[in-house]
């Protein structure tokens, strides 16, 4: 699974971090960091993260 985040859209709400903590994290400056090629077992979590992003900046590419 490939995860793409539109960093021009991202406003660091951090909702994705609650939904998929194994894939999305906030660094010490409050900016988003993420794993671009997480294991497929995490798909449901990542879908949830994409759903809850207020900017709809997260996309999953198979």
């Amino acid at each position, binding site marked *: 699974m490939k995860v793409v985040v539109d960093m021009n*859209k991202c*406003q*660091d*709400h*951090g*909702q994705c*971090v*609650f939904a998929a903590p194994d894939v999305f994290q*906030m660094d010490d*400056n*409050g900016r988003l960091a993420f794993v671009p090629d997480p294991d497929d077992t995490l798909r449901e979590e990542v*879908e949830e993260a994409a*759903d*809850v992003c*207020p*900017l*709809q900046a997260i*996309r999953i590419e198979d």
Partner: protein
Amino acid sequence: MTGRIVIAGASMGGLRAAEQLRAAGWAGAITVVGDEPHMPYNRPPLSKEVLAGKAPFESLAFAPKAAAADVEWRLGTKVVAARLDERTVELDDGTALAYDGLVVATGMRPRRLRCEGPLAGRHTVRTLADAQGLREELTRPGARVVVVGGGFIGCEVAATAVGLGVTEVTVVDPLPLPMVGPLGELLARALLKRHEERGVHFALGTGVAGFEGEDRVTGVVLGDGTVLPADVVVESVGSIANTEWLDGNGLDLTDGVLTDELLRVGGLPEVVAVGDVARFPNARYDGVPRRVEHWSIPTDTAKHAAKALVAHLVGGKAELAPFAPLPTFWSDQHEFRLQSFGSPVLGKDDVRVLDGDPDDDVLVGYHHDGRLVGVVALGGQAAAMGAARYRAQLLKQPALTA
């Protein structure tokens, strides 16, 4: 599995419902009926980035999930009536649609002021067309803007207008502070100060008595007789649930559609409600049914409602815990953000500063019977992250009734 589920309302709640029905295993037909001409789009930027000209309208559309690719979208079509006993809805193009399952997702529309005076120059912000029209008028040189209502959307529009360089922006509200309803006094005061420092004017403790002008608005008459000159008026005085199409079915439609703890409507297992229009009990708190107009709710309700509906339609029993979402909202105003978790409104009588100070980044806790029920941060990214640290604690709290 055959049959059809009809979803009334094609915004975020309608889209999430369609996706979650597929996720819950529904393989039958899904028809979404929506009266707007657009596919579902994201509303929060309408009072912020879209109004500021920072997000093109095309960037707002949700990308529907692949699993929902075969959903039928009937856009530009209104549901005008429902016969729940016969399991049909009627559309404004004269067709009747039979359903096995029905999802109510018709959301809200802005309440309007019922005052004498011209209509031209008066705006609300709920749809793409609204935001487009308002942006055009705000960006006219020398526009004088009066925002009626110091809630969420009113405060956001005022901040955006100032950011666009509008020099005369006044927020009118009968209450003594902006956003005092959802936030309580401490934060409302801090918010007022920030807005004033950035050039927003306020006329508080007084309502609107009428509008002046011949063909279009030239002024807003306040309850105390003062007249505020205005070229553009934004009415953000609350919203009304779109439920008229459900009239005549014996449902409780006072303030949205009343649901049970599985989002089912009127005791009918084949009818559920999602999003802003649903008035549901939250098992996390006191079980009192409430509507919650936050962006997180369409997704939360759709997930729960879809599971309950599909379990019923495929003949199973919904082994579902009562719905108990943790509400969350944000609001971006000027360069700062309000970030909330939990239900601050239930703890407004016992508000404590948890971190920071109201003139700077601040994190505030709301308590009920000494128990933390909500946190709200106001400030920059550090404040929002501070609030996030309390999220786990709020999730672990026992129900208020426990």
